[in-house]
């Protein structure tokens, strides 16, 4: 049972981080926008579930009062309903994801506005600052998502008995992650993906071809943030509570950067490789943390060891393997394929002579 639990845990986290990693790969890997505020979009997904969906349910059920207490009331009512009628649970899941994506897209587009025109260092600083401040406000302010206490969320899979719930949730998360993977892959092999790469390499050229860089950046961050918000929403619905401390900069900005740099920037398969390697390493580190502490005789909390370790891993990747495990490849469009075939034929002719 313990082994099964470990595997399901790994699968769930690969799914969640795959979604975030893919979203970051659109923005940074392809578009060259260093979004140091990735955690912000994920937090928006959580706010969509804990703050917005909860409030909508409060209005429906006529529950009044503080969100912290009211969310508990809403949760019990809703859980009973879902236990009787699975369709309500599934509808709530889809509705929550939709709200999260919309909120992510809108806030992402809004918060890149002040820095969309500026160079990448200003962009990174501003996005990081916004992300930190919003994180802090949602931690201190009890009316948003319950501050220190957090809020509870209805269990959308209430109709499934205890032990199988984890399994089904893992399936749902993986299903959504695969869907996102497919859509992102299609999107990035389209002309839009190549436009993003062009912007990353040289935005002056893109501007010279009549494209509006600011507009392109805003659209890209909106799409990326909408996708990242899905992960935040799924995570909240999976853990049936929302608390701001779960959405820290380290876990949702730094680690995603680590994963996509490890896998290789600018290719979707690389994201999967990087995410899998990272999640397996991290889950083992978390699961066996007490054994590690005892074996090494560390006089401190193992979470600090995790930070030091992954920080060093990041530096090692940057210095020794900046291109990641899988290298970026050009997109094979049909004209490029034709040219390559012609070349092959010519090469054969030359060889025959």
């Amino acid at each position, binding site marked *: 049972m313990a082994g099964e639990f470990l595997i399901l845990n790994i699968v769930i986290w690969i799914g969640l981080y795959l979604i975030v990693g893919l979203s970051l790969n659109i923005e940074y890997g392809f578009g060259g926008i260093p979004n140091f505020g990735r955690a912000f979009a994920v937090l928006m997904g959580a706010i969509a579930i804990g703050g917005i969906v909860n409030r909508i349910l409060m209005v429906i059920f006529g529950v009044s009062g503080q969100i912290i207490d009211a969310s508990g009331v809403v949760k019990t009512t809703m859980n009973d309903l879902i236990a009787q009628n699975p369709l309500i649970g599934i509808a709530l899941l889809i509705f929550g994801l939709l709200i999260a994506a919309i909120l992510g897209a809108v806030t992402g587009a809004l918060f890149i506005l002040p820095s969309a025109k500026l160079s990448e260092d200003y962009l990174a*600083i501003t996005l990081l600052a916004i992300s*930190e401040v919003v994180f802090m406000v949602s931690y201190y302010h009890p009316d948003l998502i319950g501050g220190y206490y957090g809020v509870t969320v209805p269990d959308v899979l209430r109709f499934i008995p205890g032990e199988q719930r984890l399994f089904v949730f893992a399936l749902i998360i993986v299903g959504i992650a695969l869907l996102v993977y497919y859509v992102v892959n299609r999107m990035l092999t389209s002309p839009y993906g190549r436009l993003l790469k062009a912007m990353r390499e040289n935005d002056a050229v893109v501007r010279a071809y009549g494209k509006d860089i600011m507009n392109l950046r805003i659209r890209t961050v909106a799409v990326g943030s909408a996708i990242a918000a899905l992960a935040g929403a799924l995570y909240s619905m999976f853990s049936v509570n929302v608390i701001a401390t779960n959405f820290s900069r380290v876990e949702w900005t730094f680690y995603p950067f680590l994963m996509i740099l490890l896998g290789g920037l600018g290719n979707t398969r690389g994201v999967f490789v990087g995410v899998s390697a990272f999640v397996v390493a991290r889950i083992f580190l978390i699961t066996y943390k007490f054994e590690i502490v005892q074996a090494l005789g560390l006089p401190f909390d193992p979470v600090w060891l995790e930070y030091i370790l992954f920080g060093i891993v990041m530096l090692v990747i940057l210095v020794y393997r900046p291109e990641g495990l899988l290298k970026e490849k050009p997109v094979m469009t049909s004209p490029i394929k034709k040219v390559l075939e012609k070349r092959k034929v010519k090469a054969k002719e030359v060889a025959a002579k």
Partner: protein
Amino acid sequence: MSVLEGAIIYSNLLVLLAIGLTMTYITTGVPNFAQGSFAVFGSYLALTLLRFYGIHPYLSIPIALIFGGVLGLVVYIGVLKPLISRGAQIVILMIATLAVDLILLGIMGAYSDYLGMVTKKSATRFIFTPYDFPVGFLSGIFVVSVLVIALILFGLYLLLYKTKFGVAMRASMENPDLAEIMGVNVETTRTVSWILSAGLAATAGVLLPFRQEIVPMTGGIIIVSIFASSIVGGLGSIFGALLGGYIVGMSESFVTFNLSEVFGPSVLVYSRVISLVVLVIMLILAPRGIVSIKWRRIKWLASFSS
């Protein structure tokens, strides 16, 4: 402590941090996301000296300056120099400083657990206010922070304007390629800027616990205010960082104080929101900072409207 006094103390510390950040930005072109953790390093150094050797935090300022400098040297030689020599892009350098920040956070957290265990006294959150003493009708930290900032500004002035090294450093800040052609060793100026920057940050870190509670995560929280100060000053000008630090520090203190009179003391925790607002307004109005504003042109334009 009056609001004005508190605001000046806070601004002084912010100026120290912002000047350091600006210096490394000018020489290496990378915004250092670990600047806040450099300060927390100074705080923990002072705490260690206090707990183990009973050295008063004020006396540990020179020690922090030296150890901070060593930290800056290690970060530059160990992390940034190899990356720069491999021709890494700015974003990669920024991610590297984020990684340094995380490593420092891990070390600081681990060390605070260890220190707390050894001294049997919590080190995960601490404050130095009980060790402060009044000087006349002013608080000790006010006098000390003003003295420190005056000394450091004077020292920087001497270093940058009165020595040959300073001329070389300013030259390589303004135009590194040209300076290199003229025989200036850009590598040295970069190294020195990192040493100075981390030294100043650690100094600010020694004084910071007199103003606010320190936890290992403090670095990640104050970084917003540091960046806001530097960006208000234009990120590329040391004088700008000086102005920016005071503008951001004062507005954070006074705006939150005035808001708290209206909305109650719960507003006080949101002082970073003010920094962010100042930062965003600055980016919209004058993205190159306060020193880039052409006041004469504004006056000239204003003369038409009257």
